[in-house]
């Protein structure tokens, strides 16, 4: 089947099997390997991309059902300059919010939506939001800390005691 969609701002047309997953279209057909596959069943969140502005697990969406959609992957969400980091990514780098790095692109995409919906999330908001993103390395602390640090900086506030990083 022919399907057309927008990926990272550019129109894409591809012949796909009806059963092809969006994540396979992105990774295998388009070579956008920043999006990862961790579980195939929609639990881990390594494959989170934005579909029409909302974070979505691309392993649980058929490519054909993304017909006409506006899809953004980590490749389209990161700053254009080499090694550039956006505000969230900068905080994640500062707190060492990534260890093996496999879940990280999905985390970043997911947190982008959280921050768009709620620019000042509480610790509980962040932890609840990340329910759909599994990480086995960090124990989530450095990730949550990064978002809190981002919020605190936006407010011109210092982080509360106990959250500072080494």
């Amino acid at each position: 089947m022919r399907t057309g969609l927008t990926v990272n701002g550019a129109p894409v047309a591809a012949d796909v099997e009806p059963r092809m997953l969006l994540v396979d279209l992105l990774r295998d057909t388009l070579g956008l390997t920043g999006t990862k596959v961790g579980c195939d069943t929609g639990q881990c969140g390594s494959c989170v991309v934005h579909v029409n502005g909302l974070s979505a697990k691309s392993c649980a969406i058929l490519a054909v059902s993304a017909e006409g959609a506006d899809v953004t992957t980590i490749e389209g969400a990161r700053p254009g300059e080499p090694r550039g980091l956006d505000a969230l990514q900068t905080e994640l780098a500062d707190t060492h919010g990534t260890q093996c790095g496999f879940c990280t692109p999905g985390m970043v995409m997911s947190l982008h939506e959280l921050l768009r919906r709620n620019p000042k999330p509480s610790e509980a908001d962040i932890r609840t939001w990340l329910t759909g993103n599994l990480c086995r390395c960090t124990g989530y602390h450095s990730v949550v800390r990064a978002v809190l640090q981002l919020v605190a900086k936006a407010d011109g506030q210092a982080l509360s005691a106990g959250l500072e990083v080494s």
Partner: protein
Amino acid sequence: MTEMKTAQQQRTFGASLRPREDVGFLRGEAIFTADYTPPGTLHMELLRSEHGHARIVDIDTTVAAAMPGVRAVVTGADIADKLLPLPCVWIPGGVESHFPPHPYGVPGAGFVLAQERVRFIGEPVVAVVAETVYQAHDAIKAVRVEYEPLPAVTDPREALAEGAPLLHEAVPGNLNAYWTCGDKDGTDAAIAEAEVVIELDIVNQRTINNPLEPRAAVGEYDPATDEYTLHATSQSPHNHRFLLAALVLGIPFNKLRLVATNIGGSFGTKGYLYPDMPLVLFLAKRLGAPVKWVDTRNGLMRSTVQGRDHTQKVVLAGTRDGKITAVRCTSWSNLGGYPSTIGPGVATALMGRSISGPYEIPHAFAEVYAVFTNVVPLGAQRGSGRAEATYLMERLVDRYAAEIGKDPAAIRLQNMVPADRFPYDNGLGWEYDSGDYPTALRLALQRAGYDDIAAERAKAKERGKLLGVGISSYVAICGVGPSTRMSKEGMLGGTWESANVRVHPSGEIALTIGSQSTGQSHETVFAQITADVLQVDMDVIRVYRSDTQKAPYGQGTYGSRSYSVGGPAVHLASMKILNKMREAAAYFFEVAESAVDYRDGVFSVPGDADRTKTFADLAMALWYGWNLKPGMEPTLDETVFFDPPDFNYPFGSHVAIVEVDPTTGEIELVRYVAVDDSGPIGNPLVVQGQVEGSIVHGIGQALIEAARFDADGQLLTDDLRTYAIPRAADVPFFVLDRTVTPSPHNQLGVKGSGETATVPAAAAISNAICDAIGVADIPMPITPEKVWRALQDGATR
């Protein structure tokens, strides 16, 4: 004074530098094995056993072979005379052991594809290669395998019983080995004579590591050179290259190159040989195209090595006034259907020799029955062996304290090895290198507010909650290890580590290490050591690793060894560079070496402004090689292999405070304090991340994780819908602190830190819950249902 302080601040060793590799991860640019697809790649899929134990009656591949895009369908019979079985290279040390056969006489670890029989639910039976992943998937579905199910056994004690199904002809009674350590008679006598005897039955349940990245392998064959290249999720690339070439593929070592790109977490699972690794190489040559295989989560759950799984009877003996006099552990370790590459060694020595923990106990004895059953092969899980040992000891200590009516903290302090008693022989085979266990525990208690816990408990009660506090103290053998010693522990291979420092003519530096990161920021933390020694900017150092064609031999990342064994190698190689440069500078300056000063990248003779050379100038001079000191070789390129004189023993104490809701059994982790001592810390930010992740791993085992098999060996928890791992909302921020006791076994004084904080975590949680609800014991994972039922059964406080 001021000057010294400045120099201290500038030191890179000990600085919380932001890991450089994180930028590539955050931008999604870092390449993992599954992201590597050379042109013309074909895709392999594996058909895994549907049974825990069955005879293969017939395999019909005719339909699959004729399907669109299919290039090969391979069964066990097709490769029987082409690929040798996998080897096992860490066997129970010093005892008689039995293994499946391998034609070269080494311990065998199962076939690349099943031969006539399957012995666990994930055993590969058929491999299909097709032009696309989807075609391979379709073809696998079209393969017909006729099985004759055989009686299965999944419990190690049942597997030892008379008449149990026999898994391997070469392994009588399914017993891989009966392994012991310590003083049996003395321990038995001490228990028989003791004033107080505490007994517990513990099931340290099987867990599944679940790194986020499933394993993957890409095989390539170059007919022009007759050489193979394997890209794989391997945390021991050099070792795997050796084992694959020599013992599985039967090709010259020179013909195989192994490359590990970034690895998406491991926690012990990716240090093993798996059937897919030789298969993609074999099929790449046969088909004349690269062959790629990427596992699914379901495949991972069914075939990647699993952790823990010790069933134990444990006994502690002591006096009425709180002196522990003996500890004994009988453990049945469930190795699964085949030995994994290093599983039997992990299951015996790492657990058994560690049972006495940080305590001075006159008599200790451990015995382990390592047993084959029809479940997935056992390997390491973060903290393996030491976590199981710590769990049993820390549960026993709490029970003992309750029995004699003493404070559990006081009992621990009373029995800990005193700080002036090192090196300390624990009587089970470990010689603890250095430590101050009571100080770490006191600090943890203070940070946890232990003295005020009664008031906190009363306040919780007013809110209708049951508050409990759990202490867990540990010492964890790390830094595997001295090669000669490890050979006695049954390791069939060396356990040293390496580093190469090459200074380019520009003054920039290539640091190449033999170990392999699986998320431990190697590109940063090792560069920090070199930057520290050579007093150069981090930016001029590039770290290389994990390509067997480029990196010096190394043994890989496991047992918290990369930094504490590889780090000293980096330090020694950097020192060699510095010493050679100093010698060269002295020759150029026409002064004695002792007259040469090196500071902030400049060699000079103090007080003589004409005699200075920058680091880069000197590097260039050595590159040109003109007018060198007689006998000095040109260039700066030094490789060091470091084999430590002994292991290192990080330690610490953790305190968990939980609140239980008696109406629902729900458990809230209110506070978690961890005080760990891994010696001097090279990068506190990175170690903080390792500690935090490690603790969550332990909490996962205590509260939610369990691999479950039914009686036929069917895995009931075979994806992330049925197997729980901790989520962000399951944990609060932790309170972390540390003490610093250097190890005498390497010049940096460093100890392992990648998995140590997992070791005490599960026991801290279990102890806290038992304290909260007033029960003697409750098996992991401690779910709200179990807590609720325990409360219904009459537990009261």
